[in-house]
């Protein structure tokens, strides 16, 4: 547990020393979500209809943007070797890195989403569901993405490969995440979508770090 906290603390401290990386993802999300209302025009019904999809896809792409830097710096400077030799199991340390990634990319996006939802004319209750779906969905994206990041580590052109590998895996999260918001918009019950999203998060949270650790050991070979 102390090794988990040590990795988390180190990654957060590193992010504080190079804020630009964190701000890039957040700014990207804001810009993407703002471009659509500008391009489509001020038609409230249309905007409301496309809002869940746009905001979810935006959050997805923003989360993908910082994935390439999840393990690469540790791999390049040898920290990953030391993590593999730790007394603590590697999956625990990986889980700490993914948690840090979520705190630095997923959480800011989630907290910002109601503000962006205003541009699409969503009402308060729908904003609440959007916030909730992203709160469960963004850690899911981080866990799935981390497996892709670990698999493409050290591969030439890994960044492009990472997108091709991870985006299809994001589809279930996207379908149920934006589905929950849409259900609320059309006055339906959104509990089912949220439950499935939650179940996927639990599965990814349990198996993701383990799969990552296996992939990282292959990268270290």
């Amino acid at each position, binding site marked *: 547990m*102390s090794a988990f906290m040590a990795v988390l603390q*180190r990654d957060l401290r590193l992010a504080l020393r190079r804020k630009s990386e964190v701000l890039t993802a957040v700014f990207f999300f804001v810009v993407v979500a703002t471009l659509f209302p500008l391009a489509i025009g001020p038609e409230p019904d249309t905007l409301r209809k496309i809002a869940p999809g746009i905001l979810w896809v935006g959050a997805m792409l923003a989360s993908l943007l910082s994935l390439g830097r999840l393990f690469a710096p540790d791999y390049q*400077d040898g*920290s990953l*070797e*030391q993590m593999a*030799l*730790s007394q603590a199991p590697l999956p625990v*340390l990986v889980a700490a890195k993914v948690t840090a990634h979520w705190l630095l990319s997923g959480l800011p996006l989630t907290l910002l989403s109601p503000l962006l939802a205003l541009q699409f004319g969503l009402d308060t209750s729908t904003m609440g569901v959007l916030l909730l779906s992203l709160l469960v969905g963004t850690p899911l994206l981080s866990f799935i993405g981390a497996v892709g990041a670990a698999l493409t580590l050290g591969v030439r052109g890994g960044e492009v490969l990472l997108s091709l590998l991870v985006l299809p895996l994001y589809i279930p999260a996207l379908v149920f995440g934006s589905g929950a918001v849409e259900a609320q918009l059309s006055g339906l019950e959104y509990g089912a979508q949220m439950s499935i999203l939650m179940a996927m998060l639990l599965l990814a949270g349990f198996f993701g770090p383990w799969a990552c650790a296996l992939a990282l050991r292959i990268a270290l070979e």
Partner: protein
Amino acid sequence: MLSVAELSCVRAGHTLFRGVGFDLAPGECLHLEGGNGVGKTSLLRILAGFSPAAQGQVRWQGQLLGSSACRLNQDLLYLGHQLALKEELNALENLQAGAAIAGTPVARDAALAALQRLGLGSRAALPVRVLSQGQKRRVALARLVLQPQPLWLLDEPFVALDGPAQDVVAGFMAAHLERAGMVLFTSHQPVDIGGRSRSYRLGA
């Protein structure tokens, strides 16, 4: 005790070495010699468990490397070419974070004392980014006095160090041998570890 028997290593279809064998008992030091590209680093990485050997066996305390009973992974301190330092953090933060991630946290005072022994006391609060190559390596080598593992695998520990720093590091190694530790290191230069070092030549 570490024992290596009939070890061979193949990289990209090319045999780097074969038939490598030696024993390392507590209190012993082995200086791994050989020209560039004979596989010194590859040998250390096999022992550290990063890459598999093509053939042969590695045993640690009688247990085969790769078996679940083998504790080699926990018992070794590996220092490779990459120093595992974060450029944005200062020397002290790097040491403390590194030790905590390794599962053996150290107090701030102990980390500072280790840096002082390597002549970096006044540089402890500077980001590692601004240190010189030799100073960075000193920061990485400070781990030697902080972490308690019995087996040290050091890949070129003396590179980029000046004379006095080399003596300090050789002193760390000698003290570790006194405590019945084990050291396996590579170096292209002759090094005196209190007269207790054997050498093993890799390659033809």
